[in-house]
């Protein structure tokens, strides 16, 4: 299966640090899967103007196509102004409405404090559900105090990321099995 890890911010270090750690876990524990980290800070992405994603060029085309070809997404987001950053929302806006059909989406959040702990429930999950993702229900919420000099220093977070990786793969395998069974029943 193809796993794409998205670092959804172009500023700061916490989300990038968390997603590098997530990538490391996947590479160590699940080397049989194809894992790719997309750090949005590395790309020049246009604002969505309503075109189909295949009609863009350059980085915008590359990033959207990479996401569309994934089986599972681990979405890393900071909390900006009580919400997800515009850079991440722009990715959703660039994609078709049902872009995440047959894909699993897992979430990692970084934040200064726990003040906006429910932002994911209230804002990110509804977007992913609308775009037809199979969402892994629990997410990993990482605060400023869990980091030390660009490393995750809280073992609880490491264990939670381990479980998130495992749940992502199990969820994909479960839905894949259902999909195969249903396809056989359709007969076309």
């Amino acid at each position, binding site marked *: 299966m193809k796993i794409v890890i998205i670092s959804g911010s172009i500023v700061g270090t916490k989300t990038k640090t968390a997603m590098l750690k997530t990538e490391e876990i996947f590479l160590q524990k699940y080397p049989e899967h194809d894992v790719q980290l997309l750090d949005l800070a590395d790309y020049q992405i246009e604002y969505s*103007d309503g*075109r*189909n*994603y*295949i*009609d863009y060029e350059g980085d915008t085309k590359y990033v959207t196509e990479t996401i*569309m070809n994934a089986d599972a997404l681990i979405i890393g987001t900071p909390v900006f102004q009580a919400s997800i950053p515009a850079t991440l929302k722009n990715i959703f806006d660039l994609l*078709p409405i*049902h*872009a995440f*059909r047959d894909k699993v989406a897992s979430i990692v959040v970084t934040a200064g404090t726990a003040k906006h702990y429910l932002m994911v429930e209230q804002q990110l999950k509804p977007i992913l559900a609308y775009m037809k993702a199979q969402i892994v229900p629990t997410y990993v919420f990482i605060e400023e105090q869990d980091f030390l000099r660009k490393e995750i220093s809280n073992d609880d977070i490491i264990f939670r990321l381990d479980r998130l990786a495992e749940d992502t793969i199990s969820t994909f395998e479960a839905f894949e099995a259902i999909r195969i069974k*249903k*396809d056989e029943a*359709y*007969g*076309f």
Partner: protein
Amino acid sequence: MKKYRIDATKGMEFGLYSLGDHILNPLTGSRISAQQRIQELVEVSQLAEQAGIDVFGVGESHQKYFASQAHTVILGAIAQATQKIKITSSATVLSVLDPVRVYEDFSTIDLLSDGRAEIVAGRGSRVGAYQLLGVDLQDYEDIFEEKLELLKQINEEERITWKGNYRAPLQNAEILPQPKDGSLPIWRAVGGPPASAIKAGHMGIPMILTTLGGPAMNFKHSVDAYRQAAENNGFDAQSLPIGTTSLFYVADTNNEALQGMYPHLNTGFQAIRGSGYPKQQFAQSTDYRDAMMVGSKELIIEKLLYQHELYGMQRFMAQIDFGGVPFDKIMKNIEMIGNDIIPAIKKHTREKGE
């Protein structure tokens, strides 16, 4: 209806159309040449005519996976290759063209075909034409409204005096040649939601409505909104024809039709829109209430009669070659349309004369 060359006493018209898509056949993994694809379009129009199909349409699209960029040229060849079938665009992307030139082209096709040409004008659902021909997408909406109004005016008046924002003004201009009977049937292509249907009704122009899939009932809102808008603006809605279109695949059984169509549908959607067609949704299309025309001939007839009852349309246009459907399958579809579907549809939709 006479102005639009429609005779309701003969029953609902049945037409075929192609977007001229040029996609590899997913079953063989290979793609025919553009030359063969274009020649097959002309051949299919002849087969359609022989099968008693009323209308044949070719649309333009200016990007990868299409071969009918010069759709008027193909329609000209079809005018020469056929004798009685109506010839229409499906659609002409008017926003990127000059309405005067479009009218000249279609009047010429009308003369070549002895009065069989029609225009379906649309905005296009892909951006290729805009990029290639240098039209700003920002003005997408205004450009189309202005150009369609001009096209309608050219069709209705002998001398044109006109001024607008997206084309040089016309001063007492005579647009030649004139079509055989002085005017052409000109339709507006409308997507699903009511907003464009309302614009068409407001302009008092016949409407071709795409009903690709999902509950047929959903499109009823657009039909009602169209007629209401026409009445509100002083037009007699009963005198304005409506056509609907859908993807089409008929086979001996529903399952055979699903199996035959799915690989093409999925590949076509993947290539053109960047995501395939969901199987769960496709499986629902064997319900007569779903708009997508896939199934046995009995189911297709049931769907068409149900939709005719819902919308009261004068024409149905079937797209039978989407996603690289090979020629032999297209022939088989045309045969079943001609032998079984058209006779049943005509019988039940004929308007009784006084």
